[in-house]
């Protein structure tokens, strides 16, 4: 059994090493990983997240414009042709990146790479498509976000924590004045070669490189990258009335600088999610909170800041107050020092989280996007070694300095009954 373990460990190392380093192809960064999966996927990452937007909601509008008509094919042609190939197209927006993905059978990559890159190089952004399709999608996104207390709490927490830049909402305001000209201007400023990275899974690096090179051959060579001022952390408290979903409290803390291993370990340590099905887990939060409430850890690393928090939810405000007290207590306890074996457990969990995230495609894109566009080498090893380097003193130092900052406290639900920050002991 030990031998089997050792070989797994070696495998992980080998996979980590075989993960392609980003190669510059015609000014565009290309990285690909090939485990001989039965399907391939290609994701075009653009530095066009809400952080870089010039007008509120324009990044969301650009996301919803994905796969509309380009110089090469119309919107209906895009959909029908990829249906004939049996592919799946999706677009997702983060605070830093816009990701356009296609998943398809092996061998169809020329078509799908062409489809994705033609949106980058020659999207038409017609006014009638904006009015007939895109505006409705923007509205639907906004409405869904407002009705979901989790996404609303985290969105508002970002704006409290970081104000501008990373603090910009992922969604457009409910009453916005977005026009197609705004979207066009945002796209032309962000769709430059230096802003684009192409990630492939289940596809050869050389194949992908040659396809990308062909696609971007005619694109203008300007390689400017989007930039914003560096993020700083502020924190604050807000209370939002909402009649949808569970009562929600978000207790967050932020740091600036590149994401640190200690936050990942803290998140793994506090997470009350049980490792065994149908059990409660051994975390102090899991055993302390009342029935009908839940606590989740939220750890969101960005390129120059991270937000860590606990999301407390429950059906009643009183229950959420109890659970919130327990959560804050656990948070403070971990700042005052952790036992050696607890830290070991947390590090193992954090390592597993990092490794299993790079198992699926979304995780790969999320984990590697920032690294690739940042230009650094892409490995799992580096994140493993920084986790291994943690010890109890560095951990408690990092955690207590995190808790020393002003908390970001958001309440969504029955704003009159839900607790204030000082009532939870913050």
């Amino acid at each position, binding site marked *: 059994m030990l031998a089997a373990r050792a070989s797994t460990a070696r495998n992980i190392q080998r996979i980590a090493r075989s993960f392609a380093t980003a190669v510059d192809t015609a000014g565009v960064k290309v990285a690909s990983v090939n485990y001989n999966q039965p399907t391939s996927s290609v994701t075009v990452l653009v530095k066009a997240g809400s952080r870089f937007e010039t007008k509120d909601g324009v990044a969301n509008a650009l996301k919803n414009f994905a796969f509309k008509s380009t110089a090469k094919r119309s919107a209906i042609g895009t959909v*029908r042709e990829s249906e*004939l190939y049996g592919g799946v197209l999706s677009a997702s927006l983060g605070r830093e990146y816009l990701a356009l993905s296609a998943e398809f059978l092996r061998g169809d990559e020329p078509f799908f790479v062409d489809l994705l890159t033609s949106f980058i190089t020659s999207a038409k952004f017609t*006014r*009638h498509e904006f009015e007939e399709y895109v505006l409705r999608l923007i509205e639907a996104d906004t409405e869904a976000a407002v009705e979901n207390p989790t996404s609303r709490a985290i969105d508002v927490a970002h704006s409290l924590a970081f104000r501008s830049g990373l603090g910009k909402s992922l969604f457009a305001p409910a009453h916005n004045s977005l026009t197609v000209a705004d979207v066009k201007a945002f796209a032309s400023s962000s769709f430059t070669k230096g802003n684009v990275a192409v990630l492939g899974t289940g596809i050869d690096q050389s194949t992908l490189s040659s396809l990308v090179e062909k696609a971007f051959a005619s694109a203008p060579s300007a390689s400017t990258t989007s930039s914003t001022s560096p993020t700083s952390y502020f924190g604050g408290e807000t209370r939002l009335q909402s009649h949808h979903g569970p009562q929600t409290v978000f207790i967050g803390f932020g740091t600036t600088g590149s994401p640190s291993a200690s936050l990942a370990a803290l998140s793994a340590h506090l997470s009350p999610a049980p490792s065994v099905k149908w059990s409660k887990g051994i975390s102090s939060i899991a055993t302390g909170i009342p029935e009908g409430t839940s606590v989740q850890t939220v750890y969101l690393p960005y390129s120059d800041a991270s937000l860590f928090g606990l999301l407390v939810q429950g059906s009643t405000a009183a229950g959420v107050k109890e659970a919130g007290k327990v959560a804050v207590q656990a948070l403070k306890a971990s700042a005052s020092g952790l036992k050696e074996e607890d830290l070991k457990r947390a590090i193992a969990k954090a390592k597993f989280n990092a490794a299993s995230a790079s198992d699926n495609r979304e995780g790969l894109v999320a984990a590697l996007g920032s690294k690739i566009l940042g230009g650094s080498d892409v490995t799992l090893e580096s994140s493993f070694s920084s986790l291994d380097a943690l010890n109890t003193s560095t951990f408690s130092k990092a955690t207590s300095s995190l808790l020393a900052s002003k908390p970001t406290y958001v309440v969504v639900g029955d704003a009159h009954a839900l607790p204030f920050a000082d009532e939870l002991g913050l």
Partner: protein
Amino acid sequence: MLFGPLSTSLAPQVKSSRTLLKWITPIANWYANASGYRKYGFKYDDLLCEENPEVQRALSRLTPREAYDRAYRLKRASQASILHAPLSKEQWMQPSEDIRYLKPHVVEVMKEEAERKMWDTVAVERK
């Protein structure tokens, strides 16, 4: 309508021949003036039969300004029709302003419909 919302036109063929264009242009201009719609402040595209889905969709793609101006011209002409008299001469549509503002949108919509039909009935072959 038999040939779609735009009806048939020989204009492309005429335009391709220089001599023919030189001969026909004065007659066409005379005909457009003689048909009288300009006296009621209309542009030619205001007369396009709008009771079909393609033109309705094209109308929805006009800019707010174009749509407003179109509605204004229609109202002004209705009023003139009630009075049984053309507009005063300074309100007549100038030939230079009589441009096809709706036709490009109709053509675009028809192209989209044709493409949809093509994809609906396409026969797929594996190479």
